[in-house]
């Protein structure tokens, strides 16, 4: 009785080229001098190294543990010393580097103690899964998904059908074929462990009808078991997981779902054998069977090769004619990828190496235009319209690509194989898929950013609202208090006074906020004079600033004179305005803070002094600016300006001193506070010091001028003059120092 099978949708019949590598039995490959074991030989997170450079490791010793749920450990495939842990070339289409562990073999191949287990049935499911996980077993068919994860991650529905994949539909590859021929017992034993684990109602082992020897061996080994060997017609890509499920059960795995969702579990025959080794013999996955074939080899065949063996080392054992090597493919000719380097290692998923000559796998001929012949659609095993996908991929119409189910493409390459225009269709789909994935990632990111931004805006709005509410509450409270106070005051006063108060209030309202008091005639006169002088001063200053040249001596004199006039007028004005601050302060200000009260009570002197100080500061700044401009222009009258600045500095110091004095007198009750608020100040200057300082500055300026002139030989002044100037400066300085000594020391005493 033969079991019913369902035909594969589409599919192709490429030349098989399998006989080259099935002539000889599986050979045990020689031990390499060194192995390079990538930490990521599987789908999922890379393993985490648990050895360090210099460590001695035994064959089968775990050297990197699984990192996370979907991950698999890595074991030393030879005994020897760890010589390097870091990025090394790995077998990948892009030729990239990834973290690997390199072990220098000692050639002894000393194994760790293996924990054999004849009676697996006595083990619990968890213990079995743990054993499989710890052995580092991943899908050996090609994808490399961690087997324990696949066995553990079952949907709620139990597995009804266990499918073992012995299809090996890709041309050239015979690793599974040879394994089935030679080690059918191991496979069957491994399958029985799987049956014990998942307890399916049926177990099917699917094999294509182009492997008669394997079928005979399997049938013999599977006698007296519940495993059913199902043979079906050869067609590429029957070995795809979803395709095999379709062939054996007639069911389709829904798009976006796993086989487990329809109660099916698929495992490769190689994986089954590895499970046998791990559970029964206690051996971790440190070797695999790899087909080494292609016309550039003299002795193609299948090798049981230690993982991490360099590709060139393995190819040598099949007698590579490197001069004939045109293309080196890892995997099959339909879905494998080309290697650019022979130095990369064999990894868990390396089922085949094709060392092809130029004539065997010639470079692709240039692509012609698509004529929409539809041969691709006939070949497609998942009933896509490759010609339409190509059309949309060229036009970058990603929405249409997804609408045309691009992501159901299994990249089997059947469409590109049959394309009469030699268009690399699969490459277009891979590219489009990559871009779509990237776009989705970016959209996700953008959505997250938007969410974050909106949350922030929300928060800020809430904060502002809270602040506003608080402010409002405070204002209301203040208004209430004020109203209460006013009421109280009103109840105490006579109605006449009330009227008076109202009048005052009205008056205050009419006047500008900082209303000026009534001015006397004298004050008016002074003010007018002050304004005139200020205007004159300003005009002069503007003239000086505008003219390219700096002020000459006459201008400077005018400036000084005017400024002096201005100051004296201001002083006079201040003197003629007694108790103005008391009057000037509006009623509201009076009632507010104690600070302003203090200010108010500090008296007229302080205020005048403060004004003076500010003026002095402004004058100094102006002079400094003028000097800077002059210095830039390298003008001759720098010294005059310098003297002006000195004068201004002196005036400023004086003003500061006067202010301090006044403050001390007004704030006598709280000297500590005054002291704290006082800035570090220049020592108070008397008339003498002032004169001396000016002299020093003048002397300095003179000297500088002379020095500058000395730089130009033609205008060089007599040496004696400079010396005299220097002398004058030093004299002036010493005089100043001498004079300053006395008051500062006296101050210190005080």
């Amino acid at each position, binding site marked *: 009785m033969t079991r019913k099978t369902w035909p594969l949708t589409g599919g192709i019949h490429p030349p098989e080229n399998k006989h080259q590598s099935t002539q000889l039995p599986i050979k045990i490959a020689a031990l390499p001098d060194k192995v390079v074991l990538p930490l990521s030989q599987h789908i999922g997170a890379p393993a985490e190294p648990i050895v360090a450079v210099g460590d001695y490791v035994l064959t089968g010793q775990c050297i990197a543990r699984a990192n996370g749920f979907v991950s698999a450990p890595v074991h030393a495939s030879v005994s020897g010393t760890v010589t390097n842990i870091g990025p090394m070339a790995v077998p990948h289409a892009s030729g990239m580097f990834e973290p690997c562990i390199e072990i220098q073999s000692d050639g002894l191949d000393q194994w760790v103690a293996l924990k054999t287990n004849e009676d697996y049935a006595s083990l619990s499911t968890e213990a079995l899964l743990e054993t499989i996980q710890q052995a580092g077993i991943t899908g050996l068919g090609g994808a490399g998904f961690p087997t324990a994860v696949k066995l553990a991650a079952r949907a709620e529905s139990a597995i009804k059908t266990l499918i073992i994949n012995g299809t090996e539909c890709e041309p050239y590859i015979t690793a599974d074929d040879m394994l089935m021929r030679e080690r059918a017992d191991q496979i069957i034993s491994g399958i029985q462990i799987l049956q014990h684990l998942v307890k399916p109602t049926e177990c099917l082992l699917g094999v294509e009808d182009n492997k008669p020897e394997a079928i005979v061996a399997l049938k013999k080994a599977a006698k007296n078991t519940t495993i059913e060997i199902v043979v079906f017609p050869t067609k590429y890509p029957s070995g795809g997981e979803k395709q095999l499920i379709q062939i054996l059960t007639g069911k389709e795995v829904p798009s976006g779902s796993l086989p487990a969702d329809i109660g099916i579990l698929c495992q490769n025959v190689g994986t089954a054998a590895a499970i046998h080794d791990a559970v029964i013999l206690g051996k971790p996955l440190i070797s695999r069977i790899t087909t080494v074939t292609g016309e550039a080899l003299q002795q193609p065949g299948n090798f049981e090769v230690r993982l991490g063996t360099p590709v060139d080392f393995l190819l040598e054992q099949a007698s590579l004619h490197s001069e004939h090597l045109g293309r080196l493919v890892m995997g099959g000719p339909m879905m494998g990828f080309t290697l650019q380097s022979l130095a990369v290692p064999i990894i868990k998923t390396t089922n085949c190496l094709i060392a092809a000559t130029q004539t065997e796998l010639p470079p692709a001929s240039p692509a012609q235009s698509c004529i929409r012949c539809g*041969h691709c659609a006939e070949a497609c095993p998942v009933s896509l319209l490759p010609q339409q996908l190509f059309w949309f991929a060229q036009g970058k119409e990603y*929405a*249409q690509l997804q609408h045309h189910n691009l992501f159901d493409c299994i990249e089997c390459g059947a469409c590109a194989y049959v394309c009469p225009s030699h268009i690399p269709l699969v490459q277009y789909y891979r590219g489009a898929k990559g871009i779509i994935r990237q776009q989705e990632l970016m959209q996700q990111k953008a959505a997250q950013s938007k969410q974050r931004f909106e949350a922030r805006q929300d928060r800020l709005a809430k904060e502002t609202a809270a602040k506003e509410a608080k402010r409002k509450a405070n204002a209301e409270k203040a208004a209430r208090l004020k109203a209460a106070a006013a009421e109280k005051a009103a109840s105490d006063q006579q109605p006449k006074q009330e009227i008076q108060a109202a009048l005052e209030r009205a008056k205050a309202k009419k006047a500008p906020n900082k209303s000026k008091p009534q001015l006397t005639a004298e004050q008016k006169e002074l003010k007018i004079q002050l304004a005139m002088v200020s205007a004159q001063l300003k005009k002069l200053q503007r003239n000086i600033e505008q003219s390219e040249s700096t002020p000459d001596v006459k201008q400077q004199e005018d400036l000084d004179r005017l400024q002096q006039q201005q100051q004296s007028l201001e002083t006079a004005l201040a003197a003629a305005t007694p108790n103005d601050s008391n009057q000037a302060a509006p009623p509201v200000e009076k009632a507010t803070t104690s600070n302003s009260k203090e200010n108010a009570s500090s008296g007229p002197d302080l205020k005048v002094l403060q004004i003076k100080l500010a003026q002095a500061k402004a004058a100094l700044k102006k002079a400094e600016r003028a000097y800077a401009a002059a210095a830039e222009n390298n003008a001759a009258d720098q010294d005059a300006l310098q003297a002006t600045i000195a004068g201004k500095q002196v005036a400023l110091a004086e003003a500061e001193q006067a202010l301090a004095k006044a403050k001390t007198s007004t704030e006598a009750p709280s000297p500590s506070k005054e002291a704290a608020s006082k800035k570090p100040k220049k020592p108070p200057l008397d008339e003498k010091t002032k004169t001396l300082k000016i002299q020093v500055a003048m002397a300095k300026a003179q000297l500088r001028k002379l020095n500058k002139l000395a730089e130009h030989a033609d205008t060089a002044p007599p040496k004696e003059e400079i010396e005299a100037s220097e002398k004058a400066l030093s004299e002036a300085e010493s005089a100043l120092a001498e004079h300053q000594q006395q008051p500062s020391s006296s101050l210190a005493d005080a």
Partner: protein
Amino acid sequence: MTLIRQTSPHTRKASSTQAIMLNVLIALIPGLLVSVYFFGWGVLINLVWASLVAVGCEALIIKLRKRPIRFFLQDYTAVVTAALLALAIPPSAPWWLTLIGTSFAIIIGKHLYGGMGQNLFNPAMLGYVLLLVSFPLEMSAWLPALGVREGQGVLDLIASIQLFAGNMPVSSLDAMTMATPLDIFRENTSLTIEELWATNPVFSDWAGKGWQWVSLAYMLGGCWLLYKRVFTWHAPAGMLLMLGVMATLFYGGEGSDSHGSPLFHWLSGATMLGAFFIITDPVTSATSNKGRFIFGAGIGALTYIIRTWGGYPDGVAFAVLLMNMAAPTIDYYTQPRTYGHKKPNRGLAKPD
């Protein structure tokens, strides 16, 4: 040693576009031979001349477009277009008629759309329709098939060349040519089928004398292409089936108002040439199998409508052009059901 860096698949089927086109040309041979037998040298002269014009135009445009000329001429698509057009126009066509039709087909119909694989309309049918609407007189005058005029063989080579050169006076041309059987049948309003067949020597057996054999020869070539899997059966089946259904529905009996039996329609005019060689042009037809069937059925229906109630001697060319326009839409609504999906997608994705 530099290793080839290429993406999978690394092996390819030994098929090519030129092989497909060559197969199409080979499949035209039976029809061509039978045509030459019944209609004389003119058919062959047309074919050779049209091919020369087509290749010349193709080369010119490719040069203008700064593409490698050899690479693009190798695909034989221009020759296929020329052959189809040459076989569709009357064997009595003068040189300029073929020149206009062919150059229009290649330059406007094909290359202005972007060249091979980009054209919306079937280039041969565009050229044919241009000639039909511009030169109705020349296009509707056919040489009588062998045996229509008693004791008269097909035109000899000299006369054919004279016709081709355009040296024939209009009067003698009129005397030499006649309407096609399909045209005569359409014009007939008074005679019953039986009377028509008895009185008019252009008819015999199922359809026009000679024409029916030419049609069957095209069918033979088409079946060979089907066997070679150059195209699928869907479009031809759709067209022939629909034409048969229409002819059956509107048959109208054997009386004078008959619109002709299905067999008559199948074996008349350009039905077979169209069904197996023109609507199977993959570039301008629908792309899925279901879509191709619908595409063919549409052409079958339109052909019948234009033939029967329209003003032109045949309707295949117009029907093909009309359905060419509908092909993209048909594609969007006939996507196959992908593995793992409950039902096929329809239409286009909504724009973002």
